[in-house]
């Protein structure tokens, strides 16, 4: 039962954080901007749950085709698009840093909805499949109790996140949520790179390409081992890798540079507008 609880919580923590942080952010907008953003967010949650169930059902019914390269590339695309949306969201938020009055409604409510959808669908389908398997196998009562407790813990985590965010002043909240979201976006990007690398590894490429895709640039596993349970959780939330190959490093570095540069440019633009 503890294992079921652990799996559900671990699989849902990324989506919980993304949606929780977006919700906390929307909560701090001027009242007139809130309904539109929240509607988009909840629509996204609903669509994500639907997509997760659909994916889980497809894996059971048409598993062979969905578990093949096409399905894997679909997973890569979901993670990469989600990562790009996080980046866009973080940069949009940076414009609202200067003054509380300048906090604007989400520039694209559709982007908020799509991000929520992808965040839930990515791991939600695995939770759905796991629960299906647990319910079908013997000893399902204990597993189901564990899984339901996991969901409850998830909801509780969401509530604590909301409560906690209210304790922070605007500036601290802004810094912390921006940092956490950017980390999560980077983690999504790394998961896309890992999957893509593994798929490219299956193609006929020049031998050097396999080394390039797979060879670690360094080994930091003595510092933090990402194949331990705690290390893996940390890796899945931050994009950390103990044995990072070059493509992932380049992608993650570009991602952080873009985030920094985008936020900086947007802040400068807003500061300029305010002084005019």
């Amino acid at each position, binding site marked *: 039962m503890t294992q079921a609880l652990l*799996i559900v919580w671990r699989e849902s923590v990324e989506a919980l954080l993304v949606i929780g942080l977006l919700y906390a952010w929307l909560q701090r907008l001027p009242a007139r901007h809130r309904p539109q953003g929240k509607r988009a967010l909840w629509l996204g949650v609903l669509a994500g749950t639907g997509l997760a169930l659909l994916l889980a059902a497809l894996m059971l019914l048409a598993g062979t085709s969905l*578990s*093949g390269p096409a399905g894997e590339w679909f997973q890569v695309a979901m993670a990469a698009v989600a990562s790009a949306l996080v980046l866009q969201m973080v*940069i949009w938020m940076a414009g609202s840093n200067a003054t509380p009055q300048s906090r604007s409604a989400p520039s694209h409510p559709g982007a908020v909805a799509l991000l929520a959808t992808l965040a839930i669908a990515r791991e939600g389908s*695995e939770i759905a*499949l796991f629960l299906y398997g647990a319910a079908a196998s013997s000893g399902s009562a204990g597993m189901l109790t564990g899984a339901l407790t996991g969901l409850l813990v998830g909801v509780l985590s969401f509530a604590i996140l909301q409560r906690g965010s209210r304790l922070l002043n605007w500036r601290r909240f802004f810094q912390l949520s921006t940092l956490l979201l950017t980390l999560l976006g980077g983690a999504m990007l790394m998961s896309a790179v890992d999957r893509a690398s*593994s798929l490219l590894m299956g193609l006929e490429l020049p031998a050097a390409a*396999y080394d390039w895709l797979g060879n670690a640039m360094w080994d930091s596993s003595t510092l933090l081992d990402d194949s331990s349970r705690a290390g893996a959780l940390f890796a899945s939330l931050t994009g950390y890798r103990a044995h990072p190959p070059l493509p992932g490093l380049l992608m993650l570095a570009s991602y952080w540079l873009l985030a920094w540069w985008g936020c900086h440019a947007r802040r400068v633009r807003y500061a300029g507008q305010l002084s005019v």
Partner: protein
Amino acid sequence: MAGALPLSTPVAALLLSLFANAVLAGGLPTVELEIRDGAFDPAVIQVAAGQRFKINLHNRGNGPVEFESLALRVEKVLGPGVSSFVVIHPLRPGRYSFFDEFHLDMPEGIIEAH
């Protein structure tokens, strides 16, 4: 525009995927691995170090499984009766563990690279 760089990978990836099936390696060293409700057969896989290899995964159990290795950064969900594969990058000599995420109470499997 801000998302252009992270997005270029999936675009390239999608283009490549169009012929991913057609050019999938034939001469790749291949290992067969059966998973039965969390039990691996064989439980220890021997491979040559420094050479990529393919693991054909077969879910022979009654429920879904998730083949996962934290050290190798692969995960693959398989419905009951489903077969698929993963290709692992060239490994340095050593032991790499894998497990079925949906059956964590079962013992782990090991890949030994010599």
